[in-house]
């Protein structure tokens, strides 16, 4: 904040004045009552309608003279004083912002592309624990592949474990397709989310995102692919996901950060690296 310009003393003179307001009037109430009684007579007795009619007519006349020839007014006295308009919010020292932007972004962040790269490498890394799972549990690396492919082949729904342990070319192709597509998609999603949590990519990618993803799948898989749901081993699933996430986060961390528009608003000395840093926030009290 630059030196606050002290332009003190624009005291507003105390005005003692009156404000013209419409005068209170009973006729709207009477007219409403008249109409209501007019209608109530339809469900009770015609005498009530008659009373309603009389009230209505009287109210219309009364209302007419409220408006004509001149609208009735009352002058309400006003005493003006001085009111302080202040904010309880701290005016904190902000990063200097450029003219078009007022939001505060991190100075640097990752680009979307780094998320995709992470997704591809993470997808490759994920194959290891998945294959390990098949080997250890069913002594076949093709088990996990076929299980993934089963989502695409209806006839495999009731296939035996032995069948799933064999090598099937169409299974390998389908699984590779599904796996590649999902990996890139997750990488893209992650890359899009990165500017929101730019600080610790390995943590978010490695643990938070896989757990979230697994949680969503856990609740939805029963509907999407019952075959997979019946046979899936969630412990190994989470391990594969975390392997994916850790590698993905690691790859992202290797990428070069890009500068947000906020960076351009920094003073030249900071941008040129002469000054180390500006205090990002300085909340004094709240």
């Amino acid at each position, binding site marked *: *904040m630059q030196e*606050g*310009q*002290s*332009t*003190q003393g*624009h005291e*507003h003179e105390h005005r003692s004045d009156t404000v013209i307001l419409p005068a209170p009037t009973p006729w709207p109430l009477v007219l409403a009552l008249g109409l209501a009684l007019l209608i109530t007579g339809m469900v009770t007795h015609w005498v009530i309608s008659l009373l309603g009619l009389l009230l209505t007519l009287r109210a219309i006349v009364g209302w007419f003279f409220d408006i004509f*020839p001149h609208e009735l007014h009352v002058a309400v006295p006003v005493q003006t004083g001085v009111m302080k308009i202040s904010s309880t919010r701290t*005016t904190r020292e902000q990063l200097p912002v450029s003219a078009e932007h007022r939001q505060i972004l991190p100075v640097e962040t990752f680009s979307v592309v780094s998320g995709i790269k992470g997704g591809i490498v993470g997808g490759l890394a994920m194959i290891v624990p998945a294959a390990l799972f098949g080997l250890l549990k069913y002594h076949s690396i093709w088990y996990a592949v076929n299980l993934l492919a089963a989502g695409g082949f209806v006839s495999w729904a009731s296939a035996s474990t032995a069948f799933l342990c064999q090598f099937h070319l169409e299974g390998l192709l389908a699984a590779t397709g599904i796996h590649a597509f999902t990996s890139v998609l997750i990488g893209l999603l992650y890359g899009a989310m990165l500017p929101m949590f730019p600080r610790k990519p390995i943590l978010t990618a490695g643990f938070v995102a896989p757990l979230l993803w697994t949680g969503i799948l856990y609740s939805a898989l029963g509907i999407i692919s019952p075959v997979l749901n019946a046979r899936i081993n969630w412990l190994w699933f989470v391990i594969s996901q975390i392997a994916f996430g850790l590698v993905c986060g690691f790859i992202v961390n290797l990428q070069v950060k890009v500068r947000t528009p906020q960076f351009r608003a920094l003073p030249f000395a900071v941008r040129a690296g002469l000054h180390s840093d500006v205090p990002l926030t300085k909340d*004094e009290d709240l």
Partner: protein
Amino acid sequence: MTTITTASRIPIDGPVETPWKLPYRGNVGMACLIIAESAIFIIFVVAYIYYIGKSLSGPTPAQVLELPIFGTICLLSSSIFVHLAVSSLRKENYRATTLHLAITVLLGTIFLATTAKEWYHLIHDEGLTIKTNLFGTTYYSLVGLHATHVVVGLIMLSLTLAFSLAGRVKEEHSEKLEVLSLYWHFVDAVWVVVFLVVYVLGR
């Protein structure tokens, strides 16, 4: 800790760039009323069209209805005169205002009289009432709803005419008279629709 003390950037009653002009509330209010009333009429018109030819018994519209050409001409031309009344009031030509108002009221009354005559004919000679069949039900309610609006308009116009004759209507009331004329134009426009639906389409 910085202390910023500064006066308002907002001029409390300073000049605004362009003169601050808002529409007259009477016109806007009447426009709103017209929208609401149009919705009511649309429902009645829809009911009328929906029930064309669905009556289980006679008489049918083709048998009993005749084109009310004279009444229609009277009502539609009254729109012109109420407009003339407003414009002459703006020019402070009070005699012309009174005259035009009187013609408007007269034409409106003639229209109402033709409707009354038609209804008398239908009820008395043809035996068509609201209870007779679906045509009677929809015809009397649609035309009756319009006639109610004509009556309300006529009462207000006559009142204005009375005050005009007493010399109490002045130039400063021209905005209010314009609001009333808007209503009257609306009533006329509705008649065009009612005429087309009941007497042209419905026959």
